[in-house]
């Protein structure tokens, strides 16, 4: 009977069995309460971009004339992308979309909760707000360039809202981007006061310049270009030194994603290295993409960027000693020594000063200052060749077509594999001609490249909206891009 009573007694304390809280996890109910929480949340935004960018090459380099898939590649669909067969159900479009919107969500979560903490010191609140808006702009800039108009999300959505938000126009997205970046410029501290790898006033200004270039708003671009000298960016003397871990926080880097080998490394380095690794660099590459002959053949002999960008002859690290090195070109730009495959410590630049100088050349040319445009363009060439012998003269650019030939060539040679080429070809419309034929591998014994004939189409300036995202929305909400319907 005592037991019966005690059993009934237990009934009254159901709460001790049912009202439990997670002992090891914060929840939305107890987070976003302090300035420190907000700092963690801002780090979370960078974390999304940091996780996405190492694989941006799949969508931005594979369709371009810089890279082609190897026989070993372990991402399904690379061959389609390389041959400009953009399929709406290709997982890579969906992955890019998901990771970008996850970052946007994290930025929006910071902006929504920014008023809650009461323990901010000095400019902390402005800084976090500025960082969130900078990063949101960066995510949208990537998305709008790839997909065109996209859903504009600036608040935290319920499931139903997320299913019923149609695409905004490109103009609306660009308006959001420029608004965010202008606010970020106002709120962010200068780079000297910020940790490396986080947004700062200079980075926001430079990104806004780039955005205006994509909008062909040369005047506004010039306005912000003119502010750049305040931030003390410069070209480094040695191109090769840019691509080493020791030298990665240099004055040429405007904004980069930072990594630490082993604990927080990136897989990009290994994605391009031979499967059997490279002596002294990596024990095991992923060999997903090889440099295309279309790109390789453009480098002049004296160009210091050539040997940095790719390596032509390779000897398998574990091969018998007597075996000679063989013709096996691979992308070398991101090759730094690291122990754990897939976890390299080399930072990945998002925006560097050489890019900005070439954007400057473009802006100035379009504002009818061809001589100053050439100065900017030549400064990049001079660094590459170590002398002025390869400078262009005004006579080399009799018309806009000729100028853009030189500019895009330089952008390609300088920024190869930095996810710029596809955007450059698309925004200039040149993908329609340049990508008609792609030289992939090259046989030095027979001196013949393997040629791939392609048929780029006008509508391919935008990628398809990921089919799974269309399907997850309420019917008719998310419209597919022209050409993919």
């Amino acid at each position, binding site marked *: 009977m005592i*037991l*019966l009573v005690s*059993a009934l007694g237990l*009934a009254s304390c*159901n709460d*001790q*069995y*049912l*009202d*439990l809280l*997670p002992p090891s*996890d914060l*929840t*939305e109910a107890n987070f976003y309460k302090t300035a420190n*929480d907000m700092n963690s*949340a801002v*780090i*979370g935004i*960078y974390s*999304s971009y*940091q996780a996405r960018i190492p694989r941006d090459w799949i969508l931005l380099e594979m369709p371009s004339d810089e890279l082609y898939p190897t*026989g070993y590649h372990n991402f399904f*669909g690379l*061959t*389609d992308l390389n*041959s400009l*067969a953009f*399929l709406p*159900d290709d*997982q890579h479009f969906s992955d890019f979309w*998901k990771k970008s919107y996850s970052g*946007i*969500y*994290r930025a*929006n*979560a910071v902006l929504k909760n920014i008023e809650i903490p009461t323990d901010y010191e000095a400019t902390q609140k402005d800084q976090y707000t500025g960082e969130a808006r900078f990063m949101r702009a960066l995510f949208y800039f990537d998305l709008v360039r790839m997909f065109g108009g996209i859903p504009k999300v600036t608040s935290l*959505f*319920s499931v139903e*809202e997320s*299913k019923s*938000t149609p695409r905004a126009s490109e103009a609306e997205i660009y308006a959001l981007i420029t608004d965010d970046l202008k606010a970020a410029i106002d709120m962010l501290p200068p780079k000297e006061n910020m940790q*490396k*790898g986080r947004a700062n006033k200079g980075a926001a200004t430079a990104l806004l310049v780039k955005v205006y270039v994509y909008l062909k708003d040369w005047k506004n671009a010039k306005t912000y270009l003119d502010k750049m000298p305040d931030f003390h960016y410069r070209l480094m003397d040695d191109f090769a030194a840019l691509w080493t871990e020791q030298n990665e926080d240099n004055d040429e880097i405007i904004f980069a994603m930072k990594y*630490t080998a082993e604990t*927080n490394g990136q897989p990009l380095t290994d994605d391009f290295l031979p*499967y*059997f*690794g490279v002596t002294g660099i990596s*024990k*095991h590459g992923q060999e997903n993409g090889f440099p295309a002959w279309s790109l390789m053949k453009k480098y002049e002999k004296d160009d210091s960027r050539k040997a940095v960008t790719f390596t032509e002859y390779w000897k*398998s690290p*574990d*091969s018998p000693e007597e075996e000679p090195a*063989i013709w096996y070109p691979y992308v070398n730009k991101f090759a730094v020594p690291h122990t*754990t*495959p897939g976890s390299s410590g080399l930072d990945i630049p998002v925006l560097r000063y050489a890019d900005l100088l070439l954007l400057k050349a473009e802006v100035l040319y379009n504002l009818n200052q061809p001589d100053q445009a050439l100065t900017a363009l030549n400064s990049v060439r001079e660094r590459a060749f170590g002398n002025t012998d390869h400078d262009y003269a005004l006579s080399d650019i009799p018309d806009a077509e000729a100028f853009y030939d030189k500019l895009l060539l330089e952008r390609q040679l300088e920024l190869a594999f930095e996810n710029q080429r596809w955007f450059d070809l698309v925004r200039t419309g040149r993908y329609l001609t340049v990508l008609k034929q792609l030289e992939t*591998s090259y046989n030095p*014994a027979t001196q013949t490249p*393997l040629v791939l004939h392609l048929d780029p189409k006008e509508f391919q300036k935008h990628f398809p909206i990921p089919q799974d995202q269309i399907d*997850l929305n309420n019917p008719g909400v998310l419209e597919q891009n022209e050409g993919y319907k």
Partner: protein
Amino acid sequence: MPVKNLYLKIPWWITQVLLTVVVSAGAARAQTISGTVRSAEKKEPLSGVTIQVKGAANGTTTDMNGRYSLSGVKPSDSLSFSSVGFQKETVSVNGRTQLDISLSAEASSLDQLVVIGYGREKKSSLTAAISRVENDILDQIPTGRIENALAGRLAGVNISNTVSSPGATPIIRIRGLGSISASNNPLVVIDGFPGGSLANINMNDVASIEVLKDASSAAIYGSRGSGGVIIVTTKSGRTGKPKLSFNAFYGSANAIGHHDWITGQEFYDYQVRYKNRDFANAGGDVSLPVWGDDRRPATYQVNPVIKEGNTIWEDVLLNPAPIQNYHLSLSGGTENVRYYVSGGLKDEQGTLINTWYKTYSVRAKVDVKINNVVSAGFLINPEFSKRRTSPVTMEAIAKMPPFLSPKKNPDGTYPKPLDYWGTSVSAGVSPLAVLYGTHNISSTFNSLGEVYLDLNLLEGLKFRTSLDANIAYSTGENYQAASATTNSVSTGSSADTRNINLINENVLSYDKTFNGIHSLNAILGASYQKTTSRNAYLGVLPGSFNNDIIETLNNATISPTASGTSKSQWGLVSYFGRINYGFKDRYLVSASYRTDGSSRFGPRNRWGSFPSVSAAWRISQEDFFRNVPVISNLKIRASYGIAGNFNIGDFQYLGKISDTYYSPDGELTKGQAQSNFGNAELQWEKTKSTDLGIELGLFSDRLNFVFDYYDKRTYGLLYNVGIPAVSGFTSSLVNVGDIGNKGFELEINSVNLDGAFKWQTSFNLSHDKNKVLDLGGVDEVINTHSRGMSWLLRIGEPMFSYYGYKLIGVLQDQEDVDNSPVLPGSKPGNGKYEDVNGDGQITPDDKVILGNFQPSVFMGMVNNFSWKNFDLSIALQSSIGAKMYDLENLYYEGPTVCAMRLSLIENQWWSEAEPGDGKTPSTALSELAYVANSDYYIENASFLAVRNVNLGYTFPTALANRLHLNTFRVYLSASNLLMITSKDFHGYNPEGYTMGEVDGIGSMPGFNNGATPINRTFVFGVNVVF
């Protein structure tokens, strides 16, 4: 599959013993004994009664008048009288020559007690679908896990051994799969403790296993019953003389491997074909020399060194391995105290190098009757197990090429393929370096304990309260030497988990029959359960081990992102009741109700209710049926009930904040971000099921049929439904969607022969049709693997059906490519696919359903024979209709100059000159995108297996007695004696899936990428009872 290596070695001394027995039986002073056998109830003579001299070979049967006569009987002998439907009697002769005897009707199998949730019931009174298996010889089946012993023995219960390595957990599915994101595992109740694990129990200690299959029987377990319930009842002591039992077996396992590996010149020739095909596809000129000519790029050259060497790696890696089991139990009791104590030891070595599983268990159970009112007891069952597993899947090591020698280099290292040829070959290290250089060892100490108190309050009214505790500590230690990895980077990790699961149950029960007509049985109960867990884990920075001598982590640098501790907890409060009523043992009704509250759901939806009703009509008990000949039992029954599923992990209803990492200033920094949508509305996933059953007994229940039809519908699925990424998340756990399972089961039990030679058969057949009924607003969800195969959830189709292109031929040449609908970029040798929508090209719209991993029918059959002192049991299992996505074949088709299997390559399209059989496309790594997304790698996984054969011999009692033994039996037991698979099946194990089964929306069930072979195991064993 060819039956090779099929042999039975009978040790010479067994033959000797058998001879001795036969000879000694005949040497005695003989006499003749005769008499009549009658039934005890009606005093009618019984014909066909078997009379056997105990411990000897002679025996006879009674004639039509119940008379018998038996010669050659010694005065000291005992005679046993047995007949179907009657209790066996054993009588000492004591010098008599006339011996009449009457046999009483056996408490028929219908009066057998069946364990149900919180009670027992007579089999004849059941109104629900419950299967039962008793442990007669199940503990003699040479396997490390008890699930394997049950395979094929229970209708509606599909037990598959997806991972065939020592100690791996088999998958049990009862009446199909109903859940996508929550577990489909049944609830395991061990001696009343809900939530136990079959891993923690020794088969030798098991008395019987009941499976509650329909929701009406499972509903009493409420929120955990939707996957069915398995109730394990362990052995208890019985009043009487102490009994000491010993069961032991020892034997050897042999892996069942492939027999079509190629080596030497043949291997070289196929590699040349492979490279030439790739070269031609890349626009090369295949007439160029294959080696030493710069015009042929290095990638497409073939080094002649690969001709040398004839190593078949499968043979190196798989070796006969011993398995042994020892179990000793002591049981007995007086009127007031009963006890059962046992200890067991099992050691199963894997056929794959450096894999094993060892368990040590102790069990003690004491029941004490203190007075007429109070009884109490306890049980304690500590068990320790230790397991070493392979760090790699089978395909990664079996694929090693024949030119790679397994012999060590002079410096003590193992050669690797790159030592022979610097490019093109596999970058892996020797499998031996991997298996010897990796130490993945896990151990678990698990203790299940219970104390209870029973009170007899009034006649028929009882109260029982119990406290159960399951306490588990596990440790996992992993170390991999640099030499064991492709990257030459050492790694290590360690984890300790502690899990404490406490439950208090209080049940008031009432059981009484009024006026001999109305039988009433009712229970009312309350249960409180709480589980807390703690996990501590440590990882090291890769490559930071100072040397490869000390494997513990103090020899390395701890990684901050891979180390930490975490805790979790959950609680469950339940109230339940059940009432069973029977009128004249003919009309039976039962109803139950349970309400569960769980901490896993938000306060608003914390409580769920789970009702059930069932009824049965025993037609054969009706007066009008008394005179129906042949039919001895006929019952029809129907049930309906709702059971739940709460297996979603703890605190999923809350929006959790998780860690993220970034490296500002080059320093690892922890950030945070919300990782899932909170959903306060989250609630139980439920399954409602209807069951209709017929039980039929013929010829005095000599032939029994049980047929069940069921219709289950799981609704409000705990489902991670995809949501648009603009929400910030890709999925959200909600209650949406329905899955249906309809099917039937047939069990047949038959006594075929019942003379001196006895033969019993039990057969079961199950069919289940799984169907997605609702996906919460979308028609289908497609989940695609990086190699191209998709798994489809589509309304109206079985869940996770394979979805891809249908192969209809091979593109023979460029002209064929130009004139056929093809995937973009197709080349000669690629597959020709069915253009389903007829638009002249192959696009994702042409994908079709290509089968499913679930079998449509599975069967089991056990035949038991006995003759004199010999007994033989043969257990068969068969599964029909399941398909497997056997992507592992790819690794044996030549990529990276790896091992090749002739059956996979001989019919391929190699060139226009060697087009193969026209059905087998080229499968090179570079062509995988044109193959792996089709049904080419989907194979028929149907099989028929002789899962176990057990041949025993019981020594004559006289001889046993002379050795002071009560029983002495020896046996030979063989597992997987025969495994017959479809001709087009190439895997090692038709049940061997490597990507798990259904576990969330991203599941890829049926995916095989390196399952380990199953073993053919022979053991010799003894059963001794003192």
